[in-house]
């Protein structure tokens, strides 16, 4: 461990957006200038007290921060091990952590004079969070969503349309999140003058992984303060689901230097890692380049990106944020998986034990917390990120259990 604690995590990424060998900026030439413009604007405004004050005010009064850190006492006692605290990102406006980032990026877009927002979305949470801030700031909004996701997340599609966004179903490729990203990049390339691309996770070309992380670290900063107030000490473990990995990075980052806090990122194990129908690039993939950054990818021997599967649309992505790839390699965070069935079981368990219905994405983190807690003792503490609420998923859950609503 001694070699690991010597890393100064605050120094990453470097000026080119690298986390070790990961990250960087791998985009067509057309996007290099707008990325440079974005990086410069972000570097300026992240130090600007008026920008930060405006963001802080919106996070408090519009998003509803700080989100509570809730001790899930009944669930913890049922498991009979560690005490589990839930960081309640599900209580944010729009029901997930995504708005922490969209609020920040949209305010930045407005400062940069951009009048049009584009975004990709998988489950629809990031699309809803983008459409919401677009309405709040009076900006035009176009959301790209894989056609398969449009079908399985019809409620969120309707929410986005109610908010005034144009939702475009992407029929190319596997018709899921990765294809929505391709299409959003294409839109941005064609409309760079007036358009700001709000990426929803800690992936993409520099500066997105660092910028999205920074906007999401409000989760970890609050959690750190809250657990110290409640327990007078740091937790033993943090747990969060990892698709692209923004809620996990937001929770983990303020704890990276705390060597005693173990970090668990939970990928979507789908139908099990052995059969290939999953979305666990950190567990099964290898480094490659997609969507502007070098990271672990699910790909075949020819470097073609593989189709993914997860019960949760928000984790159904063949890549992962480059900082997670790096934290895996240096050993600071551990990456595990939870299957569809384990996530579904955790969804029901929390709903019945605490009256809190988690998003299926967040249920992956809870499934891991369940496993960890049983191996631990009641004097130990786990903080699990409840990154979103499960209302959006009730049709999926009902269908899996043979019910039609």
């Amino acid at each position, binding site marked *: 461990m001694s070699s690991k604690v010597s890393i100064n995590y605050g120094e990453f990424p470097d000026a080119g957006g690298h986390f070790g060998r990961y990250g960087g900026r791998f985009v067509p*030439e057309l996007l290099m200038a707008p990325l440079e413009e974005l990086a410069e604007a972000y570097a300026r405004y992240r130090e600007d007290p008026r920008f930060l004050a405006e963001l802080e005010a919106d996070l408090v009064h519009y998003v509803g921060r700080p989100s509570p850190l809730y001790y899930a006492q009944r669930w913890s006692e049922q498991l009979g091990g560690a005490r589990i605290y839930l960081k309640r990102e599900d209580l944010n406006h729009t029901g997930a952590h995504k708005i922490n980032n969209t609020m920040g990026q949209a305010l930045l877009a407005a400062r940069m004079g951009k009048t049009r927002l584009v975004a990709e979305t998988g489950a629809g949470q990031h699309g809803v969070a983008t459409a919401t801030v677009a309405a709040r700031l009076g900006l035009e909004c176009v959301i790209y969503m894989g056609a398969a996701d449009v079908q399985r997340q019809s409620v969120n599609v309707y929410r986005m349309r109610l908010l005034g966004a144009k939702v475009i179903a992407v029929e190319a490729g596997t018709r899921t999140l990765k294809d929505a990203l391709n299409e959003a990049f294409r839109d941005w390339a064609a409309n760079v003058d007036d358009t700001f691309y709000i990426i929803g996770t800690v992936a993409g070309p520099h500066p997105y992984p660092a910028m999205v992380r920074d906007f999401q670290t409000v989760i970890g900063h609050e959690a750190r303060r809250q657990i110290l107030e409640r327990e007078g000490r740091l937790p033993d473990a943090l747990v969060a689901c990892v698709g692209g990995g923004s809620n996990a990075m937001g929770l983990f980052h303020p704890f990276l230097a705390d060597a005693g806090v173990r970090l668990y990122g939970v990928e979507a194990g789908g139908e099990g890692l052995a059969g290939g129908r999953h979305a666990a690039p950190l567990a099964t993939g290898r480094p490659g380049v997609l969507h502007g950054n070098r990271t672990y990818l699910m790909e075949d021997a020819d470097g073609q990106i593989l189709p993914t599967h997860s019960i949760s649309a928000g984790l159904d992505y063949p890549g992962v944020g480059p900082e997670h790839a790096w934290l895996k390699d240096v050993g600071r965070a551990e990456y595990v998986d939870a299957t569809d069935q384990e996530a579904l079981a955790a969804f029901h368990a929390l709903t019945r034990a605490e009256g809190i219905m988690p998003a299926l994405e967040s249920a992956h983190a809870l499934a891991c917390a369940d496993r960890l807690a049983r191996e631990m003792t009641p004097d130990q503490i786990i903080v699990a990120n409840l990154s979103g609420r499960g209302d959006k998923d009730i049709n999926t859950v009902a269908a899996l259990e043979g019910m039609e609503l």
Partner: protein
Amino acid sequence: MNRIERRFAACREHGRKALIPYITGGDPQPDATVPLLQTLVEGGADILEIGIPFSDPMADGQVIQAACERALVHHVNIRRILEMVREFRTDDVHTPVVLMGYLNPIEQMGYAAFAQEAVAAGVDGILCVDLPPEESQFFVEMLQENQLDPIWLIAPTTQAERIRRICEVARGFVYYVSLKGVTGADSLSVSDVAVHVANIRAATRLPVGVGFGIRDAAAAGRIAGVADAVVVGSALVAQIEAHQSEPEVMYAVVREFIADMRRAMDAAAVETALGGER
């Protein structure tokens, strides 16, 4: 002098602008690629650009993404494309071949293996769409060790200082992306293109090719008036797609499509030469 230099030198000598058609390797099926390349040469192509299919071609529009998907149904990979180039080279040792692709398939094959096998197959230049110069040092070294030309894109958004840096590492020719957007987009302005090409010429003596948004012979003729080479991709691939079920018709249409562009470009060159004398 390599094949690309020789070809541009010959074009200059004959007052001709280079025509560079793009097709996706393996589209609409693998057996069609070599006959298509031969057809393009017969139609009047000077340099051939072969796309390496990729599952997530984010710099391309729907037409080329669909072409990639057709090729990937047949699991066309880089080595399969190099076999096609090798086969093409048995009859044609003069026409330069440029491979265009995305970094990930190249990286999975390995830079060194890719460069060595590509040059052995008879490839002349490599254009890696999502690899900017900043990330390319090792890749460029591998290409240069193997006498392969790194071809770079320059965009309307590329500023003068950056144009200079790109031109320092470029060989063969530089490729100006004539509009904001992806391949297959429309709305091309020749006067804008002329201004940008002039800016690039201030930074390099390499020939300047122009692509993106050149849909027909008329557009090719206008661009030939301001650039050294015209690249046509999506409009050609759309013809291949439309006639894929009847190969003989497809080859005939492709030949005529390229020949039309050739005639328009040659007519424009004559006009420019006359205009220059007046």
